[in-house]
């Protein structure tokens, strides 16, 4: 134990004192949240060039309403409210085009060419039967043609005025004047709220609080990315570190003083120290940022010890895997080849987290989160959702992770013991099995 501690101290200082650690500490969360930041910045960097859209209205009853709607929108949204000279959004300039019923395809080709030449941004075709569409008949469709229609804000904007007008026409057909009904087209969103709670002390009823996307996805996502990031920060450098010790002939000098198992565990303990340091930094930064923003992200306190315990076990598990793989490598190339298989089990949860968060009680989520390699990431993820998952599951998951950790450490230590002094090529799989069996 004493030797493990001495090694852990050396490993920890060696890792933390490097510039790489400091840079990694800053860069890793930037990269992870980089996507979100990039989207946020890009959303503000709107292209303010006016957009010309041709409307081919086969009904003759929709286009004028759209023109009116666009004019209203342009008056409201194109220029900054306070600074009337500052353009913040493009104006939508709609152009009504009479349909050529005989040669519609030819007309659409000509319009498409105009889009290609940059004269038009897009063109909208409103089918003749749009008020009473029949299934499987294209006459009832509304189609938006552009270079990149899938992610087009204008297509999304057009949805409302087009449908409002369709409804207005349908009402008129049964003799109702739409202008008579105030708020006819006012859309009500549905707010996500938590459950109402009774305060057992004073018997008062605590009102439900809004639970939007941020609490539903934001907290679990933060928990998961943090766990993953800290795991990578602590465990994955072990592979290269061990490879270097082997390569630079440090291994045998150290092995003169302690047993391979003590050495490996010391390294793993050092990795845990590195991760916890990272965790302390991120959590204090995160909480101070949140309180500065005035958003008190309501982190359930019961979750924190679970995250910690799972994280520590996860580092034991992957630290042993990475250290034993490192002991098989003779050079950087070997290390590169073995890194991916080593961390793959830790990456898989990152691919399946979304369905798990959406339906944390599904069989898929339950089974996936009870697979020991995934448990440390997926179980806290499920626990941080609004659903309450069965109380036994975190404990069973924990038992599984402990068992798996012991197994992986045992196997890893046996590989490490032989690998660290073996020279030559990476052993084949049957050879590895023989090492493990013989000890």
């Amino acid at each position, binding site marked *: 134990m*004493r*030797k493990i501690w*001495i*090694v852990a101290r*050396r490993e920890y200082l*060696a890792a933390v004192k*490097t510039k790489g650690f400091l840079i990694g500490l800053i860069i890793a969360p930037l990269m992870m949240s980089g996507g979100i930041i990039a989207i946020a910045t890009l959303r503000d960097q709107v292209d303010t060039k006016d957009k010309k859209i041709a409307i081919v209205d086969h009904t003759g009853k929709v286009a004028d309403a759209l023109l009116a709607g666009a004019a209203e929108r342009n008056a409201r949204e194109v220029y900054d409210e306070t600074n009337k000279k500052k353009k913040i959004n493009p104006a939508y300039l709609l152009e009504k085009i009479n349909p050529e019923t005989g040669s519609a395809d030819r007309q659409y080709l000509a319009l498409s060419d105009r889009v290609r030449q940059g004269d038009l941004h897009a063109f909208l075709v409103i089918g003749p039967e749009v008020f009473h569409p029949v299934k499987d008949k294209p006459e009832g469709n509304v189609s938006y043609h552009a270079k990149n229609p899938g992610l087009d804000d204008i297509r999304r904007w057009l949805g409302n005025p087009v449908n409002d007008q369709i409804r207005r026409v349908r009402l008129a057909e049964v003799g109702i004047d739409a202008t008579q009904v105030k708020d006819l087209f006012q859309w009500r969103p549905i707010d996500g709220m938590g459950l109402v709670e009774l305060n057992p002390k004073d018997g008062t009823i605590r009102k439900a609080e809004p639970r939007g996307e941020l609490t539903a996805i934001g907290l679990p996502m933060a928990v998961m990315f943090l766990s993953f990031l800290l795991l990578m920060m602590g465990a994955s450098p072990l592979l290269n570190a061990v490879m270097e*010790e082997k390569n*630079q*002939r*440090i291994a*045998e*000098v*150290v*092995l*003169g*003083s*302690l047993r391979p198992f003590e050495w490996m565990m010391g390294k793993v303990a050092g990795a845990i120290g590195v991760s916890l340091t990272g965790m302390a930094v991120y959590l204090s930064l995160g909480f101070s940022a949140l309180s500065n923003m005035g958003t008190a992200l309501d982190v359930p306190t019961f979750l924190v010890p679970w995250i910690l315990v799972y994280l520590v076990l996860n580092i034991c598990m992957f630290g042993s895997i990475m250290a034993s793989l490192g002991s098989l490598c003779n050079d950087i190339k070997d290390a590169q080849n073995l890194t991916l298989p080593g961390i793959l089990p830790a990456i898989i949860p990152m691919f399946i987290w979304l369905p798990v968060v959406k339906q944390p009680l599904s069989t898929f989520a339950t089974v996936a989160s009870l697979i020991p390699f995934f448990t440390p990431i997926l179980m806290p993820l499920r626990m941080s959702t609004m659903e309450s998952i069965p109380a036994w599951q975190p404990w069973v998951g924990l038992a599984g992770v402990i068992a798996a950790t012991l197994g992986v450490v045992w196997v890893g230590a046996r590989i490490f013991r032989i690998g660290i*002094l073996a020279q030559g090529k990476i052993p084949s799989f049957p050879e590895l099995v023989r090492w493990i069996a013989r000890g």
Partner: protein
Amino acid sequence: MTPAVELCGVTKSFQQLKAVNDLSLTVPEGSIYGFIGPNGSGKTTTLRMIMNIFYPDSGSIRVLGRENGGPCMEQVGYLPEERGLYKKMKVGEILEFYGNLKRAQNVRAEMKSWLKRFELSSWADKKVETLSKGMSQKVQFISAVIFRPRLLILDEPFSGLDPVNAEGIKSAILDLRSQGVTVILSTHDMSVAETLCDYIFMIFRGRKVLDGTLHSIQDQYGDDTVRVQVDGGKAAIPDLDVIEGINDYGQVQEIHLKRGGDPQIILKALLDRTRVRSFELTRPSLHDIFLRIAGPQAKENHHA
């Protein structure tokens, strides 16, 4: 007195290769024991087994009176042949690290005196990567002795050292011995084995072929060697029936006599042909014995 190291019928194989074959060896406490043998003959494997880094397939090893492993290893210093240091660490930090691993008392005081002895005092705060090769070898030596071991195992301690540094290490080894430390060292330098070691052990193809003091080993071979200096060198030495082989050192030739061969015949033949500057009847050198066992001629005999 219990021996410092005792090997009893030790065998170790790597797949088909028997690296060490039924080896028994007793290293008395307080002695310097030299391991010699050609590359790949099993020296390092034996040392690693004594260090409990490799486990023997069969046989037993006792170190400092105890079955191998466990707390007695805290009293064993080890300098492996393949050695390196953490490049980014400072000299002082790395010595403290190794000292603490072995429960050293007064690591800093020991470190200070050793660094001073090897004229490295000003380097304690420098990173290892700034050291020259000789310096880092000396730092490695210190890391093996900083905790005052009772047994010191040195695999090729002099390889790559210039004579000044080699002398420094040698005198340190002798000082440790005088303090009662047992030293096992392997070497390819026969003069080191002859002059420094109390006992010499030679291993060849995994088997013990020599074991004892230099005198007792030479006694096995008797006065069967003639060391000559003659005008014309080796070419001037006639081909005689009594000669088993000639070891040519350039200026000096060692003639190995056949069993019962009379050296007078050689002297007479030489005087007939050339000027003899020196003619000495002697015991074979360790170098010569080594070659007789493991040299090309011996290999031919072995294969025959």
